[in-house]
């Protein structure tokens, strides 16, 4: 049996279930309590769990990210919400130098079972300082895990798995997905971190995406289908670890790969996927791997320009057409 839930409700259920199950789990962040969450993800949690376990913080990301890490290293299991991932930039050192390093610096004595979560990448016209796709910075760092679900069921299952993970897990959500509905299995629902999912089977080209871009890839696949082009869409779900097997199996069949992601082109998750696949499936590729990402500029406020910067189904479909016409990107 399943129920239809919004993305934010699925995340909330995951937190409620894990907090019910384990009283070492608590939620901390700006406006998560009395305000019921800047994006209402934590609505009702303060009433349900009280101020001891649902903690409103001042605007001090370095401070409360560090508090979470410190609490985790002595055995609590914090969920730290960044109002948006953009603001994690002021806490970057805490995540890079403490969360990711504690276990190894201590020779394995200490653990850091913490979850950092919040909306990531573009919202709508919030400008250059509020539109970062931060996963490209964090997926680079050993010691961290990074997940980016697209559907409510995965949001719930992956967040629950993240809370139970003994390593720091960063959950990349999307303000533009919080209202999206989807079927969520009843009862205990866990999704293993590190497994991608074929969201739409196809034979001519593989589209790899995650978070909101999975919907963009699916739309492009729909459009291409009308032209008789069969695109397989892989929803990565997890960025670090990356599910190489699922990618390789698909590319070995389709011989073509287009990676769709928000965020700038230089480096990052998209480049990593291109690098791995050309390395591991070199002979299987009939065309160079292409990427559809955010244009290489700070995000503009103008609605028209913002939409032009963010990957759209058309841009994805055009890229596939170019590729099938043996476009090598030159």
């Amino acid at each position, binding site marked *: 049996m399943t129920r239809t839930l919004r993305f934010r409700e699925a995340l909330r259920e995951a937190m409620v279930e894990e907090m019910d199950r384990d009283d070492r789990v608590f939620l901390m962040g*700006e*406006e998560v309590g*009395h*305000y019921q969450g*800047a994006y209402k993800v934590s609505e009702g949690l303060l009433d349900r769990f009280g101020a001891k376990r649902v903690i*409103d913080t*001042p*605007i*001090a*990301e*370095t*401070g409360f990210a560090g508090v979470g890490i410190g609490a985790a290293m002595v055995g609590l299991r914090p969920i730290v919400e960044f109002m948006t991932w*953009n*603001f994690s*930039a*002021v806490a970057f050192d805490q995540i890079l130098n403490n969360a990711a390093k504690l276990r190894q610096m201590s020779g394995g004595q200490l653990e850091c079972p913490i979850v950092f979560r919040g909306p990531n990448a573009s*919202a*709508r*016209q*919030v*400008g*250059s*300082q*509020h539109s970062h796709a931060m996963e490209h910075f964090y997926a680079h760092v050993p010691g961290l895990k990074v997940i980016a679900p697209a559907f409510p069921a995965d949001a719930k299952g992956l967040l629950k798995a993240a809370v139970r993970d003994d390593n720091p897990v960063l959950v990349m959500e999307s303000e533009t997905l919080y209202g999206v509905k989807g079927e969520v299995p009843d009862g205990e629902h866990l999704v293993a971190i590190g497994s991608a999912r074929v969201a739409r089977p196809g034979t001519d080209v593989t589209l790899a995406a995650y978070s909101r871009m999975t919907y963009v890839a699916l739309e492009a696949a729909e459009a291409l289908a009308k032209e008789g082009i069969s695109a397989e869409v892989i929803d990565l779900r997890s960025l670090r670890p990356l599910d190489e097997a699922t990618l390789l199996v698909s590319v070995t069949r389709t011989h073509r790969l287009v990676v769709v992601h928000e965020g700038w*082109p*230089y480096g990052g998750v998209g480049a990593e996927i291109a690098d791995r696949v050309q390395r591991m499936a070199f002979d299987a590729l009939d065309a160079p791997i292409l990427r559809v990402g955010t*244009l*290489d*500029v*700070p995000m*503009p*406020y*103008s*609605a*028209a*320009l913002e939409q*032009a*910067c963010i990957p759209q189904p058309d841009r994805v479909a055009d890229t596939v057409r170019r590729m099938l016409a043996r476009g090598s990107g030159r």
Partner: protein
Amino acid sequence: MPDDSVASPSSPEPTKPTPVAATPHPELDHLAHLYRKMALIRRVEEESARAYAEGKVGGFLHLYIGQEAVGVGAIAALRPDDYVITTYRDHGIALAKGMSARSLLAELFGKVTGCSKGLGGSMHMFDKEHHMLGGYGIVGGHIPLAAGVAFASKYRDDGRVTVCFFGEGAVGIGGFHEGVGLAALWKLPIVFVCENNEYAMGTPLSRSMSLEDVSLKALGYGMDRDRFFADDVLEVERRVAEAVKRAREQSTPTLVEVRTYRFRGHSMSDPAKYRTQAELEEHKRRDPLARARTALAGFGEARLAEIDGEVEAEVADALRFAADSEEPTLEVLERTTYKGDFAY
């Protein structure tokens, strides 16, 4: 809305007011001048809210309604070539520093005629010509920049003062500590104006700071401090002027806590459930704009109506301008990202 009725007569007439003889009252003239600025801000913000509701403005919109006396009073204490820098709640500050309503509203409408070519939006109002160095979106992130601007003035000995505005919610973050700390250590010509409007989104100061007197933070830096309410724009000007004088003449920084209140929610998406209607009404009774208008009784109703009319005309013109302007095109992006060749 009742709180604005004074400043915004339901009918925008007279658009073409009959000239009125001037009184020999320099103080009143000055107050009228400040009143006009506050009224302009109030009306621009009201129209911004309306435009937002109509979908003409996107993203976040943080209104300055209720806080006009802070920006107008503080900036009245400055020279035109002094620098100002603030947060995303920047419309009032930008207008007070001299930005035109046209350039501000065009920016909100995402037009290429906007101060930032439609690339910045509500949170990023920049006006180099008027030394308005921008609105910034990361809480506390602009405070070290402000110290740097003041550092440059000291380095060049150009006699300028920098005023850095921020909310009381910024006082707990590292950027505040480091920016203020360096300004105190290096004796920079700067005034830190904390606009304490009692809330950081839905968080009252009592839940974000161990002390409720923000100005006490100055003790930890051995810095001068001041603390007062912003009901009277002239009082704000007077008090900030003292800090500006210290900055200009002795090159020492001051932390000024100005107690104010925002009549609207944090942003357009905030219903402000965290405060009572009674609390809000009480503050609206202390509306600095209404207070200034009352204080201007001796200035003459006719001339006040004239000012209100001018403001209405200016806002109407700016709205037309913003609506009629062109949107920026894609080619603007690369050259605003890098000076010279693009680097990829």
